C-alpha cells in the first residue's frame, strides 16, 4: 500500500501548495470560515449557558421539571403570567388523589401543589402606622404599666403625631388655596378642614392624655383618612405546601425572618418585590443609584436617570420626616450634622437635604450614612417581617375574600436574587390560598344549596333586592328567625370567621394541606434528564386514573418567559443560516474560479494518467483543509473570546430580566464540546457543499484540455 500512501501524499502536497499559491483567495475563504465558526462557537456557548441559566432559574424556583393542571382549563398554564395577565385555570379539585397517583410514577420525586394568583395587600399609611404605635403605648399605659422608657416613647410618639398633623395641615392648606370650595363636596371639605384645624390646636394635644382612646379615635377616623398615602399594593403569590416547596426548589431561601413553621399559615414576601414596592422610596432610589454605579458603571454626572433619582430623593424627604418621631428626628439630625458639615442647630429637613444631594464624589459616604444613621430608625418596608397583613382577592365564586396572614420572612432565590421575575412572587401556605381562592367544591356547593333551602333564603335580583327585602313588610325578619345560620358548618372550620389568632397558631396536618383544591402542581424528577420518558409515564398514569390533567414541561409552563431561549435560538440559527448561505455562495464562486483557472493543469494530470477521483479528492482536500484549519482557528478564537468574557467577569446582567435569564448577576458562557463540534461540522459541511459544483467541473475536464495549444 506504499503506492496509495504516496498518492495521498502527493495529493495533499498539491492541494496545500495550491492553497499557498493563491494566498489572497485562501485568506478570504479562510476568514469567512473563521468568522463563521467563531460565531457558532461563541453564539452557541452563550446560548447554551443562557439555556442552563433559564433552566436553573425556572426549574429551581417555580416550575420543577413538569407541571400538571386541569385539562378543562380555558387557557394554558403560564407560571409567570402571559400576555393576557392571569391564566384561566380550572382547579384540580382533589390534589391528594393527584399526589397519590403521580408520586408512584417512576422518576417522580415530588409533587408540589400550587395556586398562583394575585391579591391586594393593604399597606396602610404612615398615619396609620404612627397611630397604631401610639395606641399600643396608650394600651400599656392604661393597663397600668409605667417606667421611664415607656413614658419617653409615648411622649415621642405623641409629638410625632402632632408633627404629622402639622405637616398635613400645611399640605392641605396649600391644596385649599388652589381648589374651588363652592362645589358639591364643599361641605365635606369644610368639615374635614375643621377636624384638621382642631387636631392642630394646642388645646387638643393638651387634652390628649385626659381621654387617650377618644383622642386616638378622632385622629384615626377624622384625620388619618385625609393623608392620601399609598393604601394597597398588588401581590403575586404562590399558594403551596410550603415545606414541600422548599424541599423541591433548592434555590429558594428565606433572607430575613424565618420559614413558615411546618403546617402553619403564613406568607413569605418576595424580597425583590419588597425592595421594589414596599421599601421606602428614598432608600430604594439610593439602592438603585448604587447598583447603577457599581454594576453598570453609570455616573450621576453623566446619567439623566440617576440625576432624576437624586432629584426625587430630595423631594421625598417629607416622607422620612413623617416617619420620624421628634426623639429619633433629633438623634438623626445630631448624628448627621457633623458628618455632612452642617451647622449646629440646622433643622433636620435641611440636613436630610444635604444627605440626599448626592454626587459621584460623596455618594458612597452618603449611602453608608443613610443606612447607618437614618435607616435603623425608620420603618424601611411598608410590610415587614413579623407583621400580619390583610390579603384580599376576588374569589373564584365571585365575592371578595380576605384573610390575615403573618409575614414570616422575605423570600429570595439563590443566584437570581435580583431577578425581576423570580423575586417578585411571594409564597403562601396552601390553606390561605384556598381561602382566598374561595372555591366551593361540588359537594360544598350542594351543601350551601341545601342550607339555603332549609333557611328559606331566596335568590334576589340586585335591582329588586331592596324591594324584596324591605318593601313587603318584615318578611325577612320573620324568615331569618326560621333557622340559625351555622357559619362554621357552611364554610368549614378553617374558614375566616374563626378568630384570626386561632388560625395563625393552628398546625395543619399533611392530609389537610393536600386534601383540597390546587390550581397546578409541579413535579420534581429524580433524574431531570429523563424528562420526556417521565412525561409519557405521567400522561399514562393520568389516563389510567382518569385524573383529567394536562402535562407540560417546564419550558412550556413558563409561557413567554420559557420561549425566550427558543426565540434566541431561532435568531442565532437564522443568523448562522444566512451567514453560511452567503459563505456557501462565496466559497463556491471562488472554487469555481480556481477550478477554471486550473483546467489545463487538471487536463494534463488526467492525460498523464490521473484518475478522476484523484482530481476530485484533490479539490475536496483543498477546501476541506481550509474548512478544518480555519474552522479550528475560529473555534480556538471563539474559545478565547469565551475565556475572555469569563475573565472579564462574564456578560453582566444589565437588567433584572437578564438576571433571571442568566440565573445570576453575570453570564459565564461555558465552552462545551458540542458547540465546537457543531461549528466544525457546519463549517466542513458548508465547505464540502460549496466544493461540489467545482468538483463536478473538475471531473468533466478531459485530457484533451491539456492538448489545447493556447497558453
Amino acid at each position, binding site marked *: 500500500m*506504499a503506492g496509495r500512501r504516496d498518492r495521498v501524499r502527493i495529493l495533499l502536497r498539491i492541494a496545500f501548495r495550491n492553497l499557498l*499559491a493563491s494566498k489572497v483567495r485562501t485568506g478570504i475563504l479562510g476568514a469567512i470560515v473563521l468568522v463563521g465558526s467563531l460565531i457558532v462557537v461563541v453564539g452557541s456557548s452563550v446560548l447554551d449557558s443562557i439555556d442552563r441559566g433559564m433552566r436553573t432559574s425556572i426549574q429551581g424556583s417555580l416550575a420543577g421539571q413538569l407541571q400538571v393542571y386541569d385539562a378543562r382549563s380555558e387557557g394554558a398554564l403560564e407560571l409567570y403570567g402571559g400576555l393576557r395577565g392571569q391564566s384561566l385555570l380550572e382547579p384540580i379539585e382533589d390534589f391528594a388523589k393527584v399526589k397519590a397517583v403521580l408520586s408512584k410514577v417512576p422518576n417522580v420525586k415530588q409533587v408540589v401543589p400550587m395556586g398562583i394568583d394575585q391579591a391586594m395587600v393593604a399597606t396602610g399609611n404612615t398615619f396609620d402606622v404612627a397611630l397604631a404605635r401610639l395606641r399600643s403605648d396608650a394600651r400599656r399605659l392604661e393597663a397600668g404599666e409605667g417606667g421611664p422608657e415607656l413614658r419617653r416613647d409615648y411622649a415621642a410618639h405623641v409629638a410625632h403625631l402632632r408633627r404629622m398633623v402639622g405637616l398635613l395641615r400645611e399640605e392641605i392648606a396649600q391644596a385649599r388655596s388652589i381648589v374651588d370650595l363652592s362645589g358639591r363636596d364643599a361641605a365635606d371639605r369644610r368639615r374635614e378642614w375643621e377636624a384638621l384645624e382642631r387636631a392642630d390646636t394646642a388645646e387638643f394635644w393638651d387634652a390628649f392624655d385626659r381621654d387617650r382612646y377618644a383622642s386616638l379615635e378622632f385622629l384615626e377616623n377624622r384625620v388619618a383618612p385625609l393623608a392620601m398615602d399609598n393604601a394597597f399594593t398588588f401581590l403575586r403569590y404562590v399558594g403551596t405546601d410550603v415545606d414541600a416547596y422548599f424541599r423541591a426548589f433548592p434555590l429558594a431561601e428565606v433572607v430575613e425572618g424565618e420559614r413558615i413553621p411546618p403546617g402553619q399559615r403564613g406568607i413569605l414576601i418576595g424580597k425583590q418585590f419588597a425592595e421594589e414596592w414596599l421599601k421606602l422610596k428614598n432608600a430604594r432610589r439610593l439602592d438603585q443609584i448604587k447598583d447603577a454605579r457599581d454594576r453598570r458603571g453609570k455616573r450621576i454626572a453623566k446619567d439623566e436617570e440617576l440625576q432624576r433619582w437624586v432629584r426625587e430623593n430630595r423631594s421625598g424627604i417629607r416622607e422620612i420626616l413623617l416617619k420620624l418621631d421628634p426623639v429619633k428626628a433629633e438623634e438623626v439630625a445630631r448624628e448627621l450634622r457633623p458628618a455632612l458639615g452642617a451647622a449646629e442647630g440646622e433643622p433636620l429637613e435641611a440636613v436630610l437635604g444635604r444627605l440626599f444631594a448626592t454626587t459621584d464624589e460623596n455618594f458612597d459616604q452618603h449611602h453608608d450614612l443613610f443606612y447607618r444613621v437614618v435607616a435603623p430608625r425608620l420603618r424601611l418596608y411598608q410590610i415587614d417581617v413579623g407583621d400580619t397583613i390583610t390579603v384580599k382577592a376576588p374569589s373564584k365564586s365571585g365575592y371578595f375574600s380576605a384573610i390575615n396572614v403573618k409575614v414570616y420572612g422575605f423570600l429570595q432565590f439563590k443566584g437570581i436574587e435580583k431577578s425581576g421575575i423570580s423575586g417578585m412572587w411571594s409564597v403562601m401556605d396552601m390553606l390561605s390560598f384556598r381561602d382566598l381562592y374561595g372555591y366551593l367544591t361540588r359537594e360544598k356547593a350542594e351543601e350551601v344549596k341545601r342550607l339555603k333551602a332549609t333557611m328559606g333564603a331566596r335568590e334576589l335580583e340586585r335591582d329588586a333586592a331592596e324591594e324584596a327585602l324591605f318593601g313587603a313588610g318584615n318578611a325577612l325578619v320573620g324568615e331569618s328567625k326560621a333557622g340559625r345560620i351555622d357559619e362554621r358548618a357552611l364554610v368549614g372550620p378553617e374558614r375566616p370567621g374563626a378568630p384570626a389568632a386561632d388560625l395563625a397558631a393552628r398546625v395543619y396536618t399533611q392530609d389537610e394541606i393536600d386534601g383540597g383544591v390546587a390550581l397546578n402542581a409541579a413535579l420534581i424528577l429524580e433524574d431531570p434528564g429523563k424528562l420526556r420518558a417521565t412525561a409519557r409515564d405521567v400522561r399514562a398514569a393520568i389516563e389510567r386514573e382518569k385524573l383529567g390533567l394536562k402535562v407540560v414541561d417546564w419550558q412550556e409552563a413558563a409561557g413567554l418567559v420559557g420561549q425566550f431561549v427558543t426565540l434566541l435560538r431561532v435568531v442565532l440559527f437564522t443568523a448562522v443560516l444566512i451567514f453560511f448561505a452567503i459563505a456557501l455562495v462565496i466559497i463556491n464562486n471562488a472554487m469555481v474560479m480556481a477550478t477554471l483557472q486550473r483546467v489545463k*493543469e487538471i487536463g494534463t494530470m488526467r492525460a498523464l494518467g490521473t*484518475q478522476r477521483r484523484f482530481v476530485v479528492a484533490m479539490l475536496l482536500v483543498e477546501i476541506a483543509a481550509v474548512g478544518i484549519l480555519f474552522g479550528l482557528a475560529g473555534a480556538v478564537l471563539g474559545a478565547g473570546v469565551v475565556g475572555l468574557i469569563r475573565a472579564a467577569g462574564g456578560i453582566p446582567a444589565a437588567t433584572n430580566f437578564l438576571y433571571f435569564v442568566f440565573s445570576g448577576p453575570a453570564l459565564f458562557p461555558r465552552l462545551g464540546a458540542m458547540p465546537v463540534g457543531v461549528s466544525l461540522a457546519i463549517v466542513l459541511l458548508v465547505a464540502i457543499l460549496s466544493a461540489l459544483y467545482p468538483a463536478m467541473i473538475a471531473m468533466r475536464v478531459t*485530457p*484533451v484540455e*491539456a*492538448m489545447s495549444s493556447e*497558453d
Partner: protein
Amino acid sequence: MPIVSLENVSKDYMLGKTVVPALRDVTLAVDRGEFLSIAGPSGSGKTTLLNLIGCVDTPTAGRVVVGGEDTSKLGERALTELRLRTLGFIFQSFNLVSVLSVFQNVEFPLLLQGGLSKKERAARVLGLLEAVGISDYARHRPNELSGGQRQRVAIARALVTRPAIVLADEPTANLDSATGENIIDLMKEMNRKDGTTFIFSTHDPKVMAHASAIVRIADGRLAAREAVDAAAAAGRR
C-alpha cells in the same frame, strides 16, 4: 505486431448542429521503436489523430489499438490506466504542474503508478534529469525555467514511467528553432537509447527532417507514409 494501429478510423466533432469531420477513414500502423512525425497544417487533424492514439479521445468509427488494447472497448478508468502505464505525453506548452518542483513533476507519474520505493524513484528521476541535462534544476519550480528547460522536464516526465510510446504534440512550437532542434535531438537520442516509440506532430519541416518516417495529413485524410530521405528532401525543398 505494431504497437499502435488504426483501422478505418473516423472522428467527427459536433460544432453546434453541424458535423465537422476531423478524421476520415484513417488507417495507420506504427511499429515499436519508430520515430514518427505526423505532419500537416494546422486544422488538418494532427491533434485529433494524436488524441486518439493517446487514448485521450475515442473514435466515432473504426478501431484504435494501442499496446494491444482496443481503446473503444475500454472504459474511462481503464483508458486512464492505459495512459499511465503505456503512454508518455509531451505537450506543446509543456504543461508542468506549477506548484510542484522539477523533481516532483517528473516523479508524479511514478507516484500515480505506485510500486517503486522512494529510493528507486529518486534514482530514476535523477537519472532522467541527468539525461535531459537539467539535473541542476531539480529543486526549481517550473516558472523559474526557460521554455527549453521546461520541455526537457516534460520529456523526462514522459519517459519516467518507461512507456512504450511517447506522444508529443507540436513539442517545438513554443520554442525558438535552435532550442527546438535540441529538443528533437534529445527525443531522438532517447528513442535510440531505449527504443521508445515516439510519435510527434509538427508543421515545421526542419523538425520533420529528424523523423525516421513521416505521415502527412490534410483535411483529415492520411497520405501514405514517406521515407525519411524523401521527406527530408521535401522538407528542404
